[in-house]
């Protein structure tokens, strides 16, 4: 077994959060190693315009899904490879609202975050500038922003116009979405050419995944990115401090080697399934229930977004596959409204599934197959799709455990994921779908159908101010294990009704600053 020389930080998972961490820590002069289970993609050579081929961007290792309403796990909820799911995410770069951080105080549900909007605001700004977010001139929802988006919004595409027309007719506010693809050049990266394959990997580097932004900057600053390295254990020393990460590295011949990377600080950024899994797999005599799990909260409180899509058939061709699918948005229904029979709310956004994905939606929602499906698909260009991002409340029964018998290709226990909608979630979902339908009809849709789906993962190692009911503190430091940090979407306390990537990245940027500051004070 190869043991690598100790570095300042090892980061497990170089995705939305890990990418930010490796870059910021390396630029602060730290010696940094980023481990990623998947390959280090070269967008110009590895990405092609083929839906099926690009499924390689998803995490497709063996997993078990269960619970009352099992969620799909092998699709776009996770990513594999450097850049993680930011390589295939739909690029909405939204800030959470101020209310999202205090849902217990305001709505009496879930828990308040140990962070406030004001804590994250400077980091939202930092990440938006680093990624070059293109957003509207003004953002009418939540309290005002301090500054404008760094880049101007993209033009409306066909679906964008449908949402805009529908909202105008109903008196609903809409805006071009704030999205992570360039509308003008930024350093070496060119502006978007509206190819429309964003969610299957951008071949032009216009999409601001961490793969082409933070990770490139990190490598320039001297960070080492070690792809094809699947972490399976965080090792602690007798004093209980995290000291190293053991991982399986697959070499270019497909041979698997066990290696160990020692570090002063271990940061786990594997997202809501792999992070709890790694902590649970790191159980030892010292930590019999898994690492950092004295509260018993590791793997609990997993959330998704209800992301039902309603498609409307328009009289004119819409060509929803053209231009970035995340095109326009309304957050008029984001906050708790006393008139509703549920608390919290949802965003409605445009989507633009490519033909195979659309055919899947048609087949599964309308039960069409064979000739019927083929004939239906002739109308593909006439369909406009509106997606929901509906808030889901955390519940302890939803989460990740290790499967008792089944193992993956490395012989590691596979994760078993359990999910079921709560009553509030279901009511919210129903209201959202009705709203999507209403907007499409107001825009002139002749017929609509809804496809049920979920998106995003949040929670599983939530942050808090009390060690008895949370896994990490507000700085993402594990309560029970010194030298161990957990920094990714799993620390989310609530899910909000915003796509989570920007908040994940803002938390990572803040965590990096806190680590650097603590390092300067010799407190690590």
């Amino acid at each position, binding site marked *: 077994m190869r043991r690598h020389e100790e570095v300042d930080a090892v980061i497990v998972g170089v995705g939305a959060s890990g990418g930010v961490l490796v870059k910021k820590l390396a630029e602060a002069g730290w010696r940094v190693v980023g481990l990623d289970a998947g390959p280090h993609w070269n967008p110009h050579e590895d990405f092609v315009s083929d839906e099926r081929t690009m499924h390689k961007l998803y995490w497709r290792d063996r997993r078990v899904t269960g619970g009352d309403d099992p969620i799909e796990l092998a699709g776009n909820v996770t990513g594999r490879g450097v850049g993680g799911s930011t390589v295939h995410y739909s690029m909405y770069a939204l800030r959470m609202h101020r209310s999202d951080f205090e849902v217990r105080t305001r709505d009496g549900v879930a828990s308040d975050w140990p962070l406030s909007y004001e804590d994250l605001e400077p980091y939202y700004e930092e990440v938006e500038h680093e990624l070059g977010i293109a957003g509207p001139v003004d953002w009418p929802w939540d309290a005002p922003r301090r500054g404008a988006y760094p880049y101007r919004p993209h033009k409306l595409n066909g679906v964008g116009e449908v949402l805009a027309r529908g909202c105008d007719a109903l008196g609903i506010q809409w805006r071009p979405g704030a999205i992570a693809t360039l509308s003008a*050049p930024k350093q070496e990266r060119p502006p978007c050419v509206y190819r429309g394959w964003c969610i299957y990997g951008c071949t032009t580097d216009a999409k601001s995944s961490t793969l082409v932004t933070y990770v490139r900057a990190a490598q320039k600053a001297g960070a080492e990115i070690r792809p094809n390295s699947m972490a399976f254990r965080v090792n602690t020393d007798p004093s209980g401090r995290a000291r190293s990460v053991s991982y399986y590295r697959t070499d270019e011949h497909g041979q698997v080697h066990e290696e160990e990377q020692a570090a002063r600080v271990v940061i786990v950024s594997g997202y809501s399934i792999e992070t709890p899994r790694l902590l649970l797999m790191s159980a030892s005599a010292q930590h019999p229930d898994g690492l950092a799990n004295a509260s018993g909260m590791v793997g609990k409180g997993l959330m998704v977004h209800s992301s039902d899509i309603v498609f409307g058939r328009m009289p004119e061709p819409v060509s929803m596959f053209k231009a970035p699918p995340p095109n326009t948005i309304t957050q008029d229904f984001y906050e708790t409204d006393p008139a509703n029979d549920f608390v919290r709310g949802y965003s409605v956004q445009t989507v633009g599934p490519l033909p195979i994905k659309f055919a899947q939606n048609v087949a599964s929602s309308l039960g069409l197959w064979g000739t019927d499906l083929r004939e239906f698909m002739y109308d593909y260009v006439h369909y406009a799709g509106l997606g929901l991002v509906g808030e889901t409340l955390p519940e302890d029964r939803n989460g990740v455990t290790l499967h008792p018998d089944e193992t993956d290709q490395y012989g590691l226990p596979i994760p078993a994921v359990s999910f079921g909608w709560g009553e509030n979630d279901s009511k919210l979902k129903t209201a959202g779908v009705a709203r999507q339908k209403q907007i499409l009809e107001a825009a002139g849709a002749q017929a609509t159908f809804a496809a049920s789906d979920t998106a995003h993962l949040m929670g599983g190692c939530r942050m808090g101010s009390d060690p008895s009911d949370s896994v990490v503190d507000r700085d993402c430091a594990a309560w029970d294990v010194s030298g161990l940090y957990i920094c990714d979407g799993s620390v989310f306390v609530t899910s909000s009704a915003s796509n989570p990537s920007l908040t994940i990245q803002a938390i990572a940027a803040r965590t990096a600053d806190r680590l650097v500051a603590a390092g300067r004070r010799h407190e690590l």
Partner: protein
Amino acid sequence: MFRDRPSRTGRALRRKAAPRSHVGGGEWSPPLRRLRNELALITTASTALLWLDNLSEHYRGGFQRKLMYVPIVANPIVAAAGALTVATGGRRGRKAFGLLSAAQTAVAIVGFVEHQRGILKRPGSNTPRDLLFNAWYGPPVAAPLQYLGLGLLGLMASAPQSAAAPVLDRVPVDRLMRAFTALNIPPLWAEIGYLHARGSFQNRAQWLPVVTLPIAGAASVAAAFSDSSTARIAAKAASGWTALLGAAGTGFHLYGLHRRYGGYGRRSALFNWLNGPPAPAPMQILGLGLAGLAAERAGAAR
């Protein structure tokens, strides 16, 4: 008036042209004749370049309306008359050039109105706030006014002496051109400003025309009211700088095309030309600046 150092070619031209110049009415002084020829050349070249820009933009707009063909067809006819005027030193084609230039101003005004209608038809135009967004991605607000400017310039280059004399008796040609420059700058400035804002001023050079054109415009306005030598220096500086901006802008826009995906590659060049920074657009400013400089030289000869 033109006793001071008429050039040899000027004398020769005058001798040759004199018998024919009755077509245009009275006699033009050599500096003015030269200015008219220079203006004809500048107008013709600018019109041809505007055609390229116009064709690219309307093609990108898919010629959604039949009206979009009008400037594409009309422009080359005007440019051809201008080219004939330039090639023959004004002996042929000048009258046609004048009439066509007058017609071009009408095309410009219709185009201007239609562009505003195009913007107002887009979703969200019920709120003034969305006008900027719709202008960013709708038909460019002030672009058709370039045809108005070129039409007027063409008229200046072709008006018969009898028609021009009463005006020029009251306002000397250099001051007239200073006022013309000053009138041209606000729409150009606004157009450049909002389109560079769409590009987020990602290159700091995008600020150059936005910050300096108003100064050039103000200098031109002030100089239009004065015959002093200071006014001439200010007007020359304003026009010289405007011309320089145009030349540099073309360079920056060509560089901007290179920065887009695929740059000038065989498979990307056309796409980038259509969707990237409009390469011929800054040449309109170059033309305006050169016209101003030419008028200053003619005025200095008074």
